[in-house]
């Protein structure tokens, strides 16, 4: 059975009817065929002659050879096994070994709607692949405008769910990151509350804000985002705290891609100053903090969720997991409904 058709599989690899960030834009270079695995799918990424990125299944519609081993032909990809050519819409445009055969003109390669934003490639993974995608709505700090941002991309050997847990757990800032440049201050005990929003929730300390990692917001919709902010010390210059917009995508059950946009709402010389200091100083310090998270997440046991004793700081995790599981169960049930359309026979 396709693991993506079960509740557990959807929790492990990511819900459908979602946009996921796949990789930094720079990973897909013009003229190249890039193979990556994301959200339980084996994908081929390439850019056409106009630079537009395409995301398709890395599986030749003829006999399933890897299209990523094929030839980039500008507006189409040719499989290297028997030369079948497929375009960006997933339509077979040529079968050189058997011209005029019924495969020609058929749209048979699974193709995922793709967009680029804030330096990353995103793709839509629909439950029903013939249905149009929801619009990709990106959080304000990475939508451009008054905000300035840098994307930090990582791949960790841990389930994406452990990263999600980590992001929804503000209290670890005061412990794990206590010696960092940003999270040295603030109390080590806190009472948290959850506040529902239109499409997610905010999890926040009731008695401290703007001191450490004090709140986090989960936005759960056409894409899942985690947003939080962390105060900078005076040494980072004018411009207030920095905001992290995070997006996660499973690579496999035990590996995931993490996108951390570090954002600051600054303009003019203050913006230039931050961008200079970020490159010259702050990027390395931010990275060292993230490494602490990585070491923690990668060393977690595979059955971490099976034997926990959660307490009040962990209510956001409970809420998020419940949300995820409920939606995964709903999607799995929809996928279990008998298919209505009969497959088209191959001539």
């Amino acid at each position, binding site marked *: 059975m396709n693991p993506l058709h079960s509740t557990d599989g959807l929790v492990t690899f990511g819900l459908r009817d979602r946009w996921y960030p796949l990789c930094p834009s720079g990973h897909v270079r013009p003229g190249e065929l890039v193979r990556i695995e994301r959200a339980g799918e084996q994908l081929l990424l390439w850019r056409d002659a106009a630079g537009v990125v395409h995301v398709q299944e890395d599986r030749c519609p003829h006999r399933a050879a890897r299209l990523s081993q094929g030839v980039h032909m500008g507006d189409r990809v040719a499989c290297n096994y028997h030369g079948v050519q497929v375009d960006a819409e997933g339509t077979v445009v040529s079968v050189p070994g058997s011209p005029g055969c019924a495969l020609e003109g058929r749209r048979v390669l699974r193709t995922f709607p793709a967009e680029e934003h804030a330096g990353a490639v995103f793709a839509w993974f629909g439950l029903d692949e013939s249905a149009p995608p929801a619009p990709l709505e990106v959080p304000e700090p990475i939508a451009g405008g008054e905000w300035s941002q840098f994307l930090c991309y990582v791949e960790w050997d841990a389930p994406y769910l452990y990263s999600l847990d980590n992001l929804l757990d503000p209290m670890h800032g005061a412990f794990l990151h206590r010696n960092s440049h940003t999270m040295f201050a603030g109390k080590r005990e806190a009472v948290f509350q959850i506040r529902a929003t239109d499409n997610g929730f905010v999890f926040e300390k009731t008695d401290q804000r703007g001191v450490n990692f004090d709140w986090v917001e989960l936005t759960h919709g056409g894409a899942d985002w985690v947003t939080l902010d962390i105060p900078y010390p005076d040494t980072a210059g004018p411009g207030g705290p920095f905001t992290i917009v995070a997006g996660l995508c499973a690579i496999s059950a035990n590996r995931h891609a993490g996108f951390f946009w570090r954002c600051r709402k600054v303009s003019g*010389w203050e913006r*230039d*100053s*931050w961008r*200079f*200091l970020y490159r010259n100083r702050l990027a390395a310090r931010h990275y060292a903090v993230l490494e602490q998270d990585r070491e923690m997440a990668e060393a977690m046991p595979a059955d971490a969720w099976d034997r926990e004793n959660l307490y009040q700081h962990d209510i956001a995790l409970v809420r998020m997991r419940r949300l995820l599981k409920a939606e995964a169960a709903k999607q799995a049930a929809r996928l279990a409904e008998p298919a209505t359309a009969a497959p088209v026979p191959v001539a």
Partner: protein
Amino acid sequence: MPSSYENAFGDELEAIYGRGVHDLPGVVAALNSSGVRPAGGEDWTESSFTAELARLSGTEK
């Protein structure tokens, strides 16, 4: 790799900011009482300082 000048400039900026000086005239004055100077050795002005930051930030306008 950042040049030694960029590192010195970064050090000085962090030190000034760390004292809580975050306004443009204050930062320029503090920079002038430090050892970091533009290539020609002259004093910083608000415009030479902001132009230098724009250059160092690699701001794509």
